[in-house]
């Protein structure tokens, strides 16, 4: 075998191996999207009921609570950024990080100090490499988040919000995650969780439903105190689940194009290998023919 042909053969072998891996990753991601979507759907009833309850308390009572009232001069805002633990998902993590950077800039422009919390190894690596300070970070569960994970991430955030601003607390709480629209579309979005913007919660409910006057047990303040941390947790849980679904969808797409690319590469390489083999054969034939005719010429000459 000629040297050229051997090189092509080797490259085809290596690209075939890569293609097998990307194909496997694509199929794993595809099966996980379905599971992640099912989880999002399963968590929806809790989230809607909770939102309804929060809206009911916030509109149905005259209670003033630090978590529902806007500070007159908000000085500090917290951002929770959700990225992935693993790469090979196209622009998934970097798009979410970009959205967080944009939000940070906007908040700074409004004269607020920004405190960043990050979920996912990719985001931690991004901030670590630039030596920017993170208030807190969590890793290791972005593939399939559980409610306990959301609770763990929510705890310091709730604590920061309830603290006085002068003592290092925050006035606003934002979350940046990748919204799962469909298999093909995922958008990085930023959302303000606290203070509650009641217009937004009303719009979600739609239909301008008139909420009845509730009887609070034991009291409106106590209910709100208990309700709001759960509300934050459930919002974070929902965001984590959507982000997980988006991550798998982004990975599936990235791996699909990698597989397609590998297929294309194998096709081109085998064409080249075929040409090289044919050239080798042609050369061998012409060498034999040339050799034979040289021999024939030589014997014809010696006969004389």
């Amino acid at each position, binding site marked *: 075998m000629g040297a050229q042909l051997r090189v092509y053969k080797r490259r085809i072998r290596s690209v075939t191996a890569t293609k097998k891996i990307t194909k496997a990753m694509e199929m794993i991601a595809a099966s996980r999207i379905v599971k992640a979507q099912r*989880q999002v759907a*399963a968590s929806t009833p809790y989230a809607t009921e909770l939102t309804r309850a929060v809206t009911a308390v916030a509109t149905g009572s005259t209670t003033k609570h630090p978590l529902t009232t806007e500070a007159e001069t908000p000085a500090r805002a917290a951002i929770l950024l959700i990225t992935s633990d693993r790469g090979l998902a196209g622009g998934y993590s970097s798009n979410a990080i970009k959205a967080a950077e944009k939000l940070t800039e906007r908040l700074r422009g409004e004269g607020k100090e920004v405190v960043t919390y990050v979920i996912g190894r990719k985001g931690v690596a991004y901030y670590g490499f630039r030596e920017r300070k993170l208030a807190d970070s969590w890793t290791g569960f972005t593939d399939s988040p559980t409610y306990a994970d959301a609770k763990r991430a929510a705890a310091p955030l709730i604590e920061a919000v309830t603290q006085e601003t002068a003592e290092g607390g925050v006035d606003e709480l934002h979350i940046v995650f990748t919204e799962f629209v469909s298999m093909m579309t995922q958008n990085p979005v930023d959302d303000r969780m606290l203070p509650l913007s009641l217009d937004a919660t009303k719009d979600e409910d739609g239909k301008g439903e008139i909420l009845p006057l509730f*009887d*609070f*047990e*034991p009291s409106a303040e106590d209910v709100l105190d208990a309700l709001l941390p*759960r509300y934050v*947790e459930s919002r974070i849980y929902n965001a984590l689940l959507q982000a997980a679904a988006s991550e798998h969808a982004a990975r599936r797409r990235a791996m699909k194009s990698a597989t397609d690319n590998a297929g294309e590469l194998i096709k081109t390489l085998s064409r080249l290998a075929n040409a090289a083999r044919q050239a080798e054969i042609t050369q061998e034939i012409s060498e034999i023919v040339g050799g034979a005719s040289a021999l024939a010429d030589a014997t014809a000459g010696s006969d004389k």
Partner: protein
Amino acid sequence: MAAELHVELVAADRSVWSGEATLVVARTTSGDIGVMPGHQPLLGVLESGPVTIRTSDGATVVAAVHGGFISFADDKLSLLAEIAELADEIDVQRAERALERAKSDTDAASERRAEVRLRAVAVR
């Protein structure tokens, strides 16, 4: 046919039970409360404990609820809990083992969780 109320028992990650009922008894922070159709709109904080639902066909559904909320309006009742289990789903032996383990580890939270589970099974 007596009036009915629609009950949704939802945990953070799934819907546990939903259906029509004539009476729901739950434990709020200020004591046990029974809700029947036509009750005044109510929003309360739940204690960990068993919730008893009398369904419209006379059967009784018991669930262990670990914290959460009860909200009632327009004959629709929602029970929201981070963790909720139907008594039928609870594995008694496992709960007993968990209780013993929690007692030896003096883990108050999981001890109470296990106790609530066992109480729910006992009520059933």
